[in-house]
């Protein structure tokens, strides 16, 4: 579904990622773990071209989306993204946030877009918050609206960039529950996370990324119970305590 090939991106002297290969098949959940500054978020952003790689290619299905002739808007409307800081549009209600892409990008008629948005918000348990503004919602609620907003576009792949890192502990569960349900429904997901429990229980594969490169990739069992690299053992141990 998504194939990343030899992707490099430099910010000044800092080069993260540097030569990353990665493949996610349909309905697979891949968790990217590793220390901060290792290039996980940048790699994620290369997949929907929020960051354009300096070198290397990214494929979505059979399409080489790093081809300069491909419109980034076309790529992005097929890939949902959920951010660490939610990034709901502050002057729009939950409902309008979910409708925005449907109306402006997909040009869905208003009544249909509204029905779809209500349905998506229902799925994430926010039927009663349709007309709330982001600032009136808790972090967990905002993040669920953000997930609904991405899902309304019928994405082929969902990208999650540390979706629970900015949340108070009491709200982490509700967001992870929504993500787990989504994974069970067969959504293709690429998740940057520090939630080792989620990676262990939900992911089909876990990749450890550090210093711009993928050090090791394997099943959750392989990665958590018997990683080949001592660094991974140390990192996981530190996070799990």
């Amino acid at each position, binding site marked *: 579904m998504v194939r990343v090939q030899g992707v490099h991106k430099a910010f000044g002297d800092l080069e993260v990622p540097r030569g990353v290969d990665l493949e996610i098949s349909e309905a697979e959940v891949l968790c990217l773990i590793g220390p901060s500054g290792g290039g996980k978020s940048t790699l994620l952003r290369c997949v*929907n071209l*929020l960051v354009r790689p300096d070198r290397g290619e990214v494929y979505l299905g059979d399409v080489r989306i790093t081809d300069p002739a491909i419109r*980034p*808007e*076309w790529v*992005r*409307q097929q*890939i*949902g*993204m959920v*951010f660490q*800081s*939610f*990034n*709901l*549009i*502050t*002057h729009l209600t939950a409902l309008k946030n979910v409708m*925005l*892409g449907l109306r*402006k*990008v997909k040009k869905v008629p208003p009544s249909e877009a509204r029905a779809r948005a209500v349905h998506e918000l229902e799925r994430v348990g926010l039927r009663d918050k349709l007309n*709330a*503004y*982001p*600032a*009136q*919602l808790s972090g967990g609620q905002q993040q669920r609206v*953000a997930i609904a*907003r*991405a899902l309304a*576009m019928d994405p082929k792949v969902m990208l999650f960039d540390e979706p629970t890192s900015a949340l108070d502990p009491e709200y982490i569960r509700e967001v992870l529950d929504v993500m787990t349900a989504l994974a069970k429904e067969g959504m293709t997901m690429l998740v940057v996370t520090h939630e080792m429990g989620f990676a262990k229980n939900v992911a089909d594969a876990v990749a450890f990324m550090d210093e711009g490169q993928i050090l090791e990739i394997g099943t959750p069992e392989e990665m958590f119970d018997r990683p080949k690299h001592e660094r991974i053992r140390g990192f996981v141990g530190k996070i799990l305590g």
Partner: protein
Amino acid sequence: MLVVLGLLGWYNLAYAEQIAPSLLKGLAVTVGLVLIVIPIGFAAGLLVGWSRTSRRWIARAVASTYVEFFRGMPPIVLIFFSWLIATRVLQFYFRVDDPFAIAFTFGVLALGFHSAGYQAEIVRAGILSVPTGQLEAADALGLTPRQRMFHVILPQAFRISLPALSNEFASVIKDTSLISQISAFELTLVGITLVNNATRIDLNLVFIVWAQVALLYLLLTVVATRILRGVENLFKVPGLEAAQP
């Protein structure tokens, strides 16, 4: 208050009443000027302010030059030049029919463009104050840069800019008094004319004329500020008004 002063014999109410109709006519012209200058200033200011945040260097360069030029020019000088161009250049070389009407038009445009220089900076600050996360979210949804501007950035930038814009509008109202210098009969020129007559009768009447003129300008700016306050309330986002009492 003026009525009390009048009853005490310190304020000539009869004269105030006598000059009221002329002053009201002047006020109407001033209001008309404001209603022309503000939309011009806002439209041009939006365009220039937007260009200043453009990725294209040529757009930024043109917009920056514009702002530097108009902020560096006293509006009165721009109005004199409007008059000079209309009455000297156009009248002598092109033999236009009504140079004064043209001078007046140019003067009004000059005030609008002058205000646009300030409004451009207000708009630019508003645009830059929209957090990057909002832009990334818009991009990630697949919005084009233009849609991102109209549906995500500008509504937020406008809300943030309103208090500063209301300041600028109050300035514009008072700047229209400069048009008096090229004989448009707005509030200030009516005042000047009345004063010229009054000095022949009684010097004290001069105070009355200018007091009335000042009061009318005050009234105008207060009304304008109130209207802008109403617009601010209209654009208020629930949950985001924490900073307001």
